[in-house]
């Protein structure tokens, strides 16, 4: 009996805690999809400048890319472009090695490889998907 009574008192507080976590999650973080365009001319391998997300991802976002010819350009037979892209380096918050603080992801340097003899004008559409923080002013290390 004693045990049951104690358990019964705990349920509302668990529910409140769960609600608070849900509320915090909605308030403080949520799923985001960021798509950036990046235009290239020619072929070769490049490393992009820092692409600043303007968002704060909690954890490294999922990266994917698409590619399209820029308007007005056509494919040349036997020389369709082969392209690949990937993340060379993330820009993150600086966290001391022994710190337990969460690492936030703020931007990325990408590598892009274009194989073709034709100087195609391509438009890469770079997608970053993940959980972003809403109230970044409270995150230590982000604002100077």
């Amino acid at each position, binding site marked *: 009996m004693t045990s049951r009574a104690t358990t019964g008192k705990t349920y509302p507080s668990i529910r409140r805690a769960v609600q608070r976590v849900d509320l915090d999650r909605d308030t403080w973080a949520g799923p985001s999809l960021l798509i950036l365009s990046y235009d290239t001319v020619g072929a070769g391998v490049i490393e992009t400048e820092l692409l600043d997300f303007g968002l704060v991802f909690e954890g490294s976002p999922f990266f994917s890319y698409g590619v399209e010819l820029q308007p007005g350009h056509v494919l040349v037979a036997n020389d369709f*472009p082969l392209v690949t892209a990937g993340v060379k380096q993330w820009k993150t918050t600086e966290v001391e090695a022994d710190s337990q603080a969460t690492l936030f992801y703020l931007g990325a340097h990408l590598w892009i490889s274009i*194989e073709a003899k034709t100087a195609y004008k391509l438009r890469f559409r770079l*997608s970053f998907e993940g959980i972003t923080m809403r109230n970044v002013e409270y995150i230590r290390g982000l604002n100077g």
Partner: protein
Amino acid sequence: MANDGAVRRIGRSLRQADMRQELDRGQWATLDKIDYDIVVEGRGEAEAGPFWFGRAFDTPPFFTFSAVARGANTGIATQITVGVAEWLQDEQDMYVGAMLWFIFDACWEPFPTGMIISEDFENHNKAYLGGPDGNELIGLGRLGNSTPENPFTVILAWPSRPLNTIERIAVFEPGTSIFKLIRRGDLSPYKVMQDPTPSRLEDFEVKRSYWSLSDVAPAGGLWHLRQVQQPVSGPAVFSLGAIDVGTVSPCGYDLEGDAWFTLPLIRVAPGMTVKMRANAKVNDTYDQISYQFRFGVDFLDEKGVLIGSSGLGMSTRNGQTVGLTSLFTSYSKYEAIWHLIPYGGFDEATEVNWPANNNDIRYVQLRAGVGWNPVSNLYPYPELIFDVDDIEVELLGPAQSVSAPVFDVALNFGGQMLQGYSSVHPLRSYEAPLKVLLS
């Protein structure tokens, strides 16, 4: 108070307008996507479409794709790109379809794609180049002719015993000042880069003299040649260009010996005829060395396991006495032919160790070699500088035996999709090619 009331009213109507706008946005455009599942067959490139969405996006949607190889073709294709060649818009400038380009660049490598495990070659260089750990360097070459406009990529390869496969491949990309050390089987194409770094190459010119070549045959190195990645399902002739296979020092190790240099792995089928032609040149620093130019071939099964080999030798001798330090040049055209006759062995091969069932052969790895037999113990050690130029490989039928790679490809277009738009502006129905054939 009156002012306060007006402000409140204005504020309320602004809020209502905002809410209505959000409601409209929610009703008329939502984040949505369109998927297509198609089949792509073959190697090469193709433009395909139109892929009609049957719906409309108000801005270009985000396009992605994924490809999964079917069955035994897994691992054949090394690079795949699908891109948007053109967006198709209606009279309202909405995005209602797309033309796509496909390019699947494949090679004949049966091993799974690996990963780059180190970009710091300098340390490995000292460890492996003729090092004491048994990892002799067995191949060094360059792609094409080296000119300022077309510098070459150097590829080094080490054997892995006893499987006769490649343990490591190092690719030197001039201009990058790094060697990429690659795990077995990674055949990602390497672009011929500009701005070579001659000093690095000279280093290897010197060190090549110290290779141990007493134990290299028949372990295989592997050349990755971007320009020979083409279908070989039918009769095909392709040129491998010139390959400087390097210098060998026959003395200092064994007075007799041979060295083999491996050429690209080629996917074949039972019944196929493989012809190999090349110009071979041997410069030796003495006139007393008998040497023999050789062609060889290793036969591998579907999993890349060595199941047999064949060699074809053509003896020659310099025949002149020109002094101890003079170079003598022999430059001849050679041809070797292997008929991969099902259940019947091979024609025109002088040394054969073929598998019991030739139908198991799925890959051949051609080799060019030189053997020597000095007549006396010479000092300083002679060198054979061995070059092979104008290598051509001809593959003759049967066309039906080599299946083209088949991939299941998922195409995805995602973005702000207009809702109810098609009822106002008739759109084409949702339709797309079911299969794309590459060539």
